[in-house]
């Protein structure tokens, strides 16, 4: 399938360009930040008695570029460090590499986002089908209205409401820090801990985004119901169960596009939701790094979120190709 390969290559190329744009953006951001943090660290090191040489080496370790020289040479230095997956060192947690910190936060966030997406997707699809089938009844109307109302509630509002209701008013869940002693990885303690801490944030994700799936699924089912091949299947005497499967499979296709978009939405939402629930993911990392003006950590988190969104988009797109034979076979010949 040379065309499929070409398609994938195109995706990756576009992804790389996006990553490049984001890295350039963070470089400029850190560089042009009021009070220039790079210059500030350099000067404070000099004050502490570092030699200019040692100080600039130290700054380069932190931010990934030397504090002087032309803008272009600083930029080049920065990019070459990135190519070695060196995101610099954290300023707030002295000596810890940003790459390590971001990676460990990412593990928590990816679990949460996946849970949120799966939950909201399943909920939206099932309720969307019900809303479409019962579209002339109160149940159908109610579901559609609930869907569009919840769809309009921003994620951070949803998160705050859940926090207030379920941890303060009726303290069913704790928002304490995840046990720092647990090794992230594929072990029971980690997974159990993720589950107990992820229930609320995942619910917040699901509640604030299933409405979109519900509405898309409903309109998609209604449009498939009017398609010729559904009547044709009924006129062939196909059993109601099979007709239902024909409808749902075809109706779910447009949702993959929404799925791709929602991954970005989810990672973005992680910023608010994680900090509301004190959940140790990338969003919380980003927020705390901003609070502590830890620019190297901030740009690292920012970069990783970008990469995650791009990868999720590619996966969703490939998924679509696999599910729809019109796309799959067209790319085969």
């Amino acid at each position: 399938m040379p065309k499929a390969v070409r398609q994938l290559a195109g995706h990756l190329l576009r992804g790389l360009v996006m990553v490049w744009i984001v890295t350039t953006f963070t470089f400029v951001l850190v560089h042009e930040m009021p009070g220039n943090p790079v210059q500030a660290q350099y000067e404070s090191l000099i004050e502490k008695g570092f030699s200019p040489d040692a100080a600039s080496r130290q700054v380069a370790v932190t931010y990934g570029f030397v504090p002087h020289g032309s803008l272009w040479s600083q930029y080049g230095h920065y990019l070459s460090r990135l190519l070695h997956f060196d995101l610099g060192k954290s300023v707030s947690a002295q000596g810890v590499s940003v790459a390590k910190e971001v990676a460990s936060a990412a593990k928590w966030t990816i679990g949460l986002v996946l849970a949120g997406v799966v939950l909201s997707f399943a909920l939206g699809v099932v309720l969307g089908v019900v809303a479409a089938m019962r579209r002339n009844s109160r149940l159908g109307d109610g579901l559609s209205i609930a869907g569009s109302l919840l769809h309009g509630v921003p994620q951070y509002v949803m998160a705050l409401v859940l926090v207030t209701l379920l941890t303060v008013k009726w303290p069913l869940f704790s928002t304490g820090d995840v046990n720092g002693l647990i090794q992230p990885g594929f072990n029971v303690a980690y997974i159990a801990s993720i589950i107990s801490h992820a229930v609320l944030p995942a619910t917040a994700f699901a509640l604030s985004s299933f409405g979109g799936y519900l509405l898309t699924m409903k309109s998609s089912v209604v449009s498939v119901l009017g398609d010729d091949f559904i009547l044709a299947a009924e006129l062939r005497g196909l059993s109601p169960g099979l007709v239902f499967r024909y409808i749902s499979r075809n109706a779910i296709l447009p949702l993959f596009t929404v799925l791709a978009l929602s991954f970005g939405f989810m990672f973005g939402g992680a910023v608010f939701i994680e900090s509301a629930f004190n959940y140790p993911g990338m969003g919380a990392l980003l927020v705390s790094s901003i609070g502590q003006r830890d620019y190297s950590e901030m740009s690292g988190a920012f970069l990783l979120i970008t990469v995650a969104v791009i990868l999720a988009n590619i996966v969703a797109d490939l998924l679509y190709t696999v599910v729809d034979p019109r796309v799959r076979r067209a790319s085969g010949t």
Partner: protein
Amino acid sequence: MTMTAGSGDPLVTAAVVGGGPSVQIRDLTVAYRIAGRDMAAVAGIDLELPPGSITGLVGESGSGKSTLALALLGAVQKPGRITTGSIEIDGVGDVVTLAPKAVRKARGAQIGYVFQAAQNSLNPLKTVGRQLLDLAKSHDVDDKQSLVRQAKSLLERMGLDAGRMLDAYQHELSGGMRQRVGIMFALVLNAHLLVLDEPTTALDMISQANILSIIRDVSTDRALTTLVVTHDIGVVAEVSERIAVMYGGRLVEQGPTTQVLRDPKHPYTRGLIRAIPRLHGDPALAQALPGRPPTLGTTPETGCVFRERCDVFARLQLPACVETDPRPTPIDGDRLVSCHAVASEHQQADREARA
């Protein structure tokens, strides 16, 4: 006085000889409920499909042909329903009163339907073969291999590469192929009644001719009772033995195709034929029928539904045309015409002959 010339003894004998099921539609009315009112799209129709014959149902778009065809399968679409009448199908029973599950089972098994939009009659996400297996599952067919064999032989019979067809998705098939695959699906379970709604409408000229000859051959081979629904009287002229002309939800004329085309009685039938040069020979004389067919809302409630476009009414202004809906009158033995002018002319001729 004989009321229904079409349902005489000859047909009953034919049913015994032909063996396949015949269809008997009596006083069928199908109405769509629009803005709280039942609007009849098919009004009080009597029609019989002799076993082993091909009948062509013609009429302009909107005359109720598809509604009638769907009624045969108990599949009138919302907000429509059958309000009166019966549809007796041999080997199935009265579709109007049959339990929904029995109707579902009869579709595909005894009654094959080729959809008006056969171009899009397949699930785009499944191969033809997979959909064939779905059909088997729905109709409790245990011997799937023989079903596949049957499908292949039908496809080959229609000049297709059977293996390739079963592996294909709808979007990989041409219009003509899709139509033939549609016919395969309609017949693979050995239906004896075949209903085709506009089987050639979306096709190019060559595929049209091809499909028509396939319909003719397959119907003869399998002794099918076939109903071909079309707005194109040329199609009917080519395949059907009998013709039924529909206008505004009524059957205005029916009879053997050759007789009706040679000597159309109803002013509407005459108009239809005049509009088609290849049927009456002289392209220079082709004349489109003036005016437009009625829609559900504009169908006259009393009198003849055709009178506003009728040249005979324009000339004679018979009061009956405004007052009563003309009933089918038997003419020349095997023909039925619903027209006041034709009926009175016929009576007069009868009286003169007797005198």
